[in-house]
């Protein structure tokens, strides 16, 4: 995938308990964007959150073809980075997980097209 549209989350989302890997739908009843779908989007959030099982859910979403095209965070998240690394190892599909300074993160607008062949995504593949 060379381009994808941004899904900017208002609050951090735990993928475990937060996303159904069978469909990519946001299922966390407490999340303001309940019902949105992460599939093939560039998921943008300030940080990761919650369960250590989110690594498994990300890998399962990649297997099922429902994963985001890329993930953009405001701070490093070991759990999501490891989930993406395992998915690439198992299925040969790369979901770049990149960290941007908060000011750059805040400039991304929901629905904005993002070029995944440009930096910082290209070197994260």
């Amino acid at each position, binding site marked *: 995938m060379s381009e994808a549209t941004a899904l900017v989350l208002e609050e951090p989302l735990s993928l475990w308990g937060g996303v159904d890997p069978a469909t990519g739908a946001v299922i966390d009843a407490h999340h303001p964007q309940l019902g949105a779908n992460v599939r093939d989007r560039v998921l943008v959030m300030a940080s990761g959150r*919650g369960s*250590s099982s989110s*690594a*498994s859910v990300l890998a399962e979403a990649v*297997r099922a073809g429902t994963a985001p095209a890329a993930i953009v965070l405001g701070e*490093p998240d070991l759990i999501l980075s490891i989930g993406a*690394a*395992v998915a690439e190892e*198992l299925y040969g599909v790369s979901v770049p997980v990149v960290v941007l300074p908060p000011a750059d993160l805040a400039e991304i607008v929901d629905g904005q097209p993002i070029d995944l062949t440009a930096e910082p995504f290209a070197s994260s593949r």
Partner: protein
Amino acid sequence: MRLVVRAAEVTGATELIDVTGAHVDSCLYHGEATLDFVQRLADGRARVRVPTTLNVGALDLLHPELYRGDRRIAERGRLLMDRYRSLGARPTFTCAPYQLADSRPALGEQVAWGESNAIAFCNSVLGARTNRYGDFIDVAAAITGRVPHAGLHRTEARRATLVLRLAEDVPAALRDTDAIFPLLGIVLGRRAGSAVAVVDGLAPGQSEDRLKALGAAAASSGAVAMFHVVGSTPEAPTLDAALQHHRPSVVELLRLGDLRAARDELTTAAGERLTAVSLGTPHASLAELERYAAMLGGRRVHPHVEMLVSTGRDTLAAAARSGISERLREAGVQLLVDTCSYIAPILRPSEGATMTDSAKWAYYAPGNVGARVVLGSTAECIRSAVAGRVIRDDALWGPA
């Protein structure tokens, strides 16, 4: 090893250190990817290099008939648990490995643990050192025996930066009950996020079971991997020690209203109608099983109430030797091992409320298994189970 090196890149570590043990959470089934991963490990003839315990799985292997969900998922979940055992890990299947006498790392020991409550307990109560290791990296650490030298493996990161001080309006009677600990945890998790906080204002020498309840709640509402309680946790003999002799970044008061708000927020059911009671999240210790039996005091659980207690298979074996498990069963209590009732479909589907003394259960069960929850103290749960309706002890909390 590639995963461990990737972890070092993400955490910014420049060196790896040895660990002496691991607790692996990857054995809980989350779809075929989890089986594909362990198959890849098996194909490479991987074996764990350090003593490794396993966290809960998708079902109770000793009482599989309790599973009410999709049979195919139960079978895949069982296969995943078997695969992790085949890597050389001990089939403990508990979220409370710290209750096993031979799986308690010593003060200062470096380990790699998964499972949020176990991570918090390991760092805070045992004073052993682990980061928040998630799925895949936990078993990668067990196989390589190495982790990045980052985060809570380093002394300076274990310093409390946030002080939570109990306000004067929290009654002395409440400060010395089990009921306060899960609620303290919920508030601590919300306020601390992933920072290290220290709780000031409790009597010294709080029990491991109380600290377990606090940590499990904090690791549910926040990303808490370590906390201190002045006078009770080993790296906080004094407030100054927990702060490593620095000034705290933030000092906040924790009021009675905060605790009551946390309790009410995690209570999603209204009315008195009660259909189930769930205790033992994280897994009940032998001391807790003994307390439940003593609190029941020979009375039986009401016939309309399903009462479940989750515990580890090793604790259940000890309870069988001492006769406690038989006493609980005679009172109408169902004992569940290897999994937990907020992960697996075990409870009878129902419109009524489930009462629990666990903030972690209250936090996750509505989303995971569709439960309607009343959060109460252990004593309130047991009185309610016997009476067949929700009973509150307003003397403890003041009138609502």
